[in-house]
């Protein structure tokens, strides 16, 4: 491809929650598309349907259903194998497009009982809430795992429900967003003057700066274009950070490929 950029990627840091990488020699629009895609179009699995059989808690039905939908589920293993509910051949729910959860708690003791994400019982052990995912540490269960609080129960109060989790992505509802935040930076020293600092001395240096201690802003260069993009993707735990990036690129590729196919049909049908 004669006019294509020879882009490069360097991963600078990778752990369980974060991935930091730098993309060079690509266009700003491409880097931004990757950022947007990572947030809104990377598929995950989240609870999408709640059937409440009994609720004597202080929160009303819809409130509980909303909270339960927002609980992140560790989708790493199942998300590629599941169909979207709208694409599935079944009517209603089936194991190909949904996973069933159950919650059945009644507080019989005097003290307050907290219903947490740990009380959500799954029908498929490959799909559990993020907080229930056992950490494979050498120290075992020494870490205090804070489960997500759903509601608190007084003595005699009860909550019983069935829920179904489905595949989806951020564009449809925020519960399917796999990232906490995607940090995106380019031109740390403001060579391009894409922003104008009223008082450059006030602004602290970025971690990616090439300026010395006493310099505040690099000299303006009219011929430069945005070229090097610093990403830091933080995951909610629904997907591993590296999976978010790779899945996002897959989705982008699919979209471009669909567009190309449709364009081909258009030009063939021409006058």
């Amino acid at each position, binding site marked *: 491809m004669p006019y294509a950029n020879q882009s490069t990627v360097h991963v600078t840091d990778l752990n369980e929650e974060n991935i930091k990488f730098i993309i060079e020699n690509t266009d700003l629009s491409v880097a931004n598309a990757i950022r947007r895609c990572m947030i809104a179009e990377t598929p995950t699995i*989240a*609870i*999408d*349907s*709640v*059937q*409440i*059989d*009994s*609720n004597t808690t202080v929160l009303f*039905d*819809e409130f509980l*259903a*909303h909270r*339960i*939908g*927002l609980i992140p589920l560790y989708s790493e293993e199942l998300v590629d194998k599941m169909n979207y509910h709208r694409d599935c051949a079944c009517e209603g729910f089936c194991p190909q497009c949904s996973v069933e959860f159950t919650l059945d708690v009644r507080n019989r003791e005097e003290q307050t009982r907290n219903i947490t994400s740990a009380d959500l019982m799954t029908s498929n052990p490959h799909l559990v809430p993020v907080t229930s995912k056992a950490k494979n540490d050498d120290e075992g269960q020494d870490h205090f795992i804070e489960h997500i609080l759903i509601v608190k129960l007084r003595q005699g109060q009860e909550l019983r429900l069935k*829920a179904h989790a489905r595949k989806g992505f951020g564009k449809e*509802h925020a*519960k399917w967003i796999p990232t906490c935040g995607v940090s995106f930076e380019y031109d740390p020293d403001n060579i391009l003057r894409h922003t104008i600092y009223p008082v450059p001395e006030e602004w602290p240096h970025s971690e990616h700066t090439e300026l010395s201690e006493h310099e505040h802003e690099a000299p303006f260069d009219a011929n430069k274009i945005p070229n090097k993009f610093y990403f830091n993707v933080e995951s909610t735990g629904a997907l591993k950070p590296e999976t978010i990036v790779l899945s996002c690129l897959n989705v982008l590729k699919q979209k471009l490929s669909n567009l190309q196919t449709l364009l081909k049909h258009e030009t063939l049908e021409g006058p």
Partner: protein
Amino acid sequence: MDKTPIHDPSMTPLPSTTTASNVLQPKAMIYICGECHKENELKSTDVIRCNECGYRILYKKRTKRLIVYDAR
């Protein structure tokens, strides 16, 4: 996305005007006393008071219909 909960279609009442009801008229329903929380069975013709403590405010039980919500 519609926000109304989905009701089980088999439980929807028939819209016909001359409903031949195959249920006992008056139907006896269970109401819960506001004070002693006892379950009272009441017909539509009965006086509204608890059988045990005489409290006159009674509450209806939660519907038996399956209510499904979108978790959105």
